[in-house]
């Protein structure tokens, strides 16, 4: 929570409708996402009860488990879900583009698009993760054989769930997460976890305020919970008798009625997000997602083992370091893409905006061995300047150019520029800010930070368990109870 978001929340209270906290969209949105709304049976460890799934708003497919405690029926549910999800995933394994060789990498192929799964909330992401965990180790032969698609589904779901922890990834997205990144409501974050209430604030029905719509959304009779947890009253009064009666049609209509309102909210969420223009760096992050997808698809195609139950020490530390770097980069990228997010840094003094009042684009520094181009610009800041000599800043308008503080007098900041001007001793037009240009400079950088050095797998210190053995699932994994 930042002060700007807090202010947006109080404005939402007084205006009765959610307020924007972003000017562009920071998540990628597929042109045909797979919307997945799962329900689990209360009290059980992620036992599937029902789901609506599909990539077209008017064609949701309903899957359900008639006797939710029946193991075989659960695997039938998994196989049906696998048929839908795997064919959706497969549909992206067609056209590729060639990624040219890098300094240390061979040229490689990358799929031009990737699948995107949308779930209602954080619980939906949890469902994907646990359902992946409970299916990926299953065997397709022998005593506990399941349909061949089941363990494959498990691997893919696990991939999506793990990738969703990666900051800025859009392969598996929770709708409440995506919406609350772009709008601040007049309620608390706890209440924002209710998709119906959140959408009510952002897009209230005509004649209603956001606050009223959100209040109405809390009534589970009109707006059943968006899952995976069900409404206890529904369980006791509708679901239990229907299961007891063993009536498929009763169950089907009961479950459909619980899921449909959320299904519609999901697509309303999609169109709300589509209404925002994408941020300039969204594409770049989606490319990283496409890379991850391509890599995993070929791993699966080569028959790779299912993901281990727990990360071994070195892998866990590496993963954590990778996530931290990705988070820093993601924060910077969003601020570069979105003046409203950059404004957070202006508020905290890590950025300032102003107008160029003097510019010497052809200034040469000849104090060193080689004469170099080092233009000076003077920016009259409209924000309090808390940075001082020694600080180095970048403007999102010219991300490859760095400005070093030379002096500050009152609101006027003199910066010495380097980079982003070609190799010559004269500046190409437009590469140095001209008098009158309005700019924001920030200490935030999106430059690459070298990864921390970790011991290789083989060199894992004994304090961390020594070199790990590769995780090979055993019979017990395959036969694991699911009761």
């Amino acid at each position, binding site marked *: 929570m930042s002060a700007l978001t*807090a202010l947006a929340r*109080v404005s939402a209270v007084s205006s009765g409708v959610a307020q924007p906290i972003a000017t562009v969209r920071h998540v990628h949105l597929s042109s045909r996402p797979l919307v997945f709304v799962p329900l689990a049976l*209360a009290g059980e*460890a992620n036992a599937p009860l029902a789901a609506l799934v599909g990539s077209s708003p008017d064609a949701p497919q309903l899957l359900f488990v008639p006797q939710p405690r029946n193991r075989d029926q659960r695997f039938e549910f998994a196989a049906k879900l696998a048929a839908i999800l795997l064919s959706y995933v497969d549909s992206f394994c067609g056209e590729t583009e060639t990624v040219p060789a890098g300094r240390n990498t061979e040229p490689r192929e990358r799929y031009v698009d990737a699948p995107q799964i949308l779930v209602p909330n954080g619980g939906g992401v949890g469902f994907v993760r646990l359902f992946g965990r409970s299916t990926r180790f299953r065997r397709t032969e022998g005593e506990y054989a399941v349909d061949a698609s089941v363990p494959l589904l498990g691997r893919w779901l696990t991939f999506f769930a793990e990738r969703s922890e990666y900051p800025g990834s859009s392969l598996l997205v929770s709708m409440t997460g995506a919406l609350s990144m772009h709008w601040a409501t007049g309620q608390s974050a706890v209440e924002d976890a209710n998709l119906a209430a959140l959408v009510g604030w952002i897009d209230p029905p005509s004649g209603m305020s956001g606050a009223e719509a959100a209040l109405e959304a809390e009534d589970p009779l009109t707006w059943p919970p968006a899952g995976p947890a069900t409404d206890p009253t529904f369980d006791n009064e509708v679901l239990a008798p229907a299961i007891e009666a063993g009536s498929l049609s009763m169950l089907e209509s009961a479950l459909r009625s619980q899921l449909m309102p959320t299904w519609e909210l999901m697509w309303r969420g999609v169109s709300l997000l589509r209404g925002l223009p994408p941020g300039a760096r969204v594409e770049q992050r989606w490319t990283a997602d496409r890379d991850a997808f391509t890599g995993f698809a070929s791993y699966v195609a080569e028959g790779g083992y299912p993901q281990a139950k727990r990360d071994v020490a070195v892998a866990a530390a590496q993963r954590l370091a990778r996530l931290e770097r990705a988070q820093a980069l993601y924060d910077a990228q969003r601020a570069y893409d979105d003046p409203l997010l950059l404004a957070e840094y202006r508020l905290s003094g890590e950025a300032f905006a102003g107008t160029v009042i003097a510019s010497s684009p052809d200034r040469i520094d000849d104090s060193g061995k080689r004469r170099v181009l080092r233009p000076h610009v003077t920016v009259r800041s409209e924000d309090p300047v808390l940075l001082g000599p020694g600080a180095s800043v970048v403007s999102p308008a010219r991300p490859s150019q760095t400005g070093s503080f030379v002096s500050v007098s009152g609101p006027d900041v003199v910066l010495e520029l380097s980079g982003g001007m070609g190799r010559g001793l004269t500046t190409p037009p437009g590469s140095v800010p001209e008098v009158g240009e309005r700019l924001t400079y920030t200490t935030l950088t999106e430059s690459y930070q070298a990864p921390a050095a970790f011991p290789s797998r083989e060199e894992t210190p004994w304090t961390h368990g020594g070199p790990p053995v590769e995780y090979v699932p055993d019979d017990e994994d395959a036969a694991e*109870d699911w009761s």
Partner: protein
Amino acid sequence: MTNLECLRGAAAPKSHNARTIAALTTNPGCSRRAVMDAAGIDKERLASHVGFPARFGQSQFAITRGNVFEAQLKANGCAELLRLLREVLALPIGAAAYDDLESVNQLDARADRSRELLTRAADGDEDAGTLFDHPLLRLEVGGRWVYLEPDLIALQFGGKFYVVEIKSFAVIDGKADGTKVSAAATQSAVYVLAMRRLLAEAGYDPGLVSHDVVLVCPENFSNRPVATLVDVRKKLSVLERQLARMGRIDAIVDGLSPSLTFDLQVDDAGVPQRPVAELVDGMGQIDARYSPECLANCELAFFCRHEARGSTAALGKSVREELGGVSSVSHALSLASGAVPPAEDEIEAAEMLRFAAKLRSECLS
């Protein structure tokens, strides 16, 4: 009639259990809740009568699953539990005298019998047993005795008591839902405290009861149980502080109007007749401290949320902090727009708010 009895009126006091005592600790700064709980007022009924019913339903599937899991563990004289406890606590093999205290009918008799057995065990009397199923403990809460029923208390070789708590949420690959674990730990801490007080009153060292409790849950996706030791020291100190606070509730009650009562004036058919406005007015006389966390923990949450509309705290603690501690929504907006001059202690917050408002309007225009 004491003041607390006046507040409650004619209704029988609502009895506590470990869950409701645990809930006491979630918003320790709220006087309204402290007074209501100390007086044994049925908050759920009060909330519905004033038009803000709580929604804390439980699914019958969850209840069934919990019961089945506990029954499975306790079948054949707790055979499966014993096996687990031998592993985590090194309970002596064989020594498994088992007392099912649930079979004693009358509450006080059960509590007495429990005390007798547990203190004999503390004496080192080997015949007293090693596993005590559903003993009945008592704890003083706000001047009243509350009966508590832990799932099980185990006595380790060497004389340490362990509270065993059985829960049916799953531990998957060594991880469980953090909120559920924390709630289970707080409830167990209630039992540890009650057991410690029982021993202390009988002249024993309360330290005989371990601050580690044994949490037994199903493992992964199966019904196979797994036991984990959970340290509840932190929960214990929060709990003790809150109970001590309830003991001093008189100070708050003394400040209330002597005629204040939350009696619902239930008629012969059991329907409350008390005018809602009187109750709402009455609640308004006791300070509340609403925060969004109340929604998960207190039966009065929807009422208090409604009452707290327009306060920044209702939007979450961090929102209020980010706004420089300004407590009202409209005041925060007036400071941000410069419509009202800031008071002495608001100058810094007002400056930040004005800057923030300027930035927002600049970026959104």
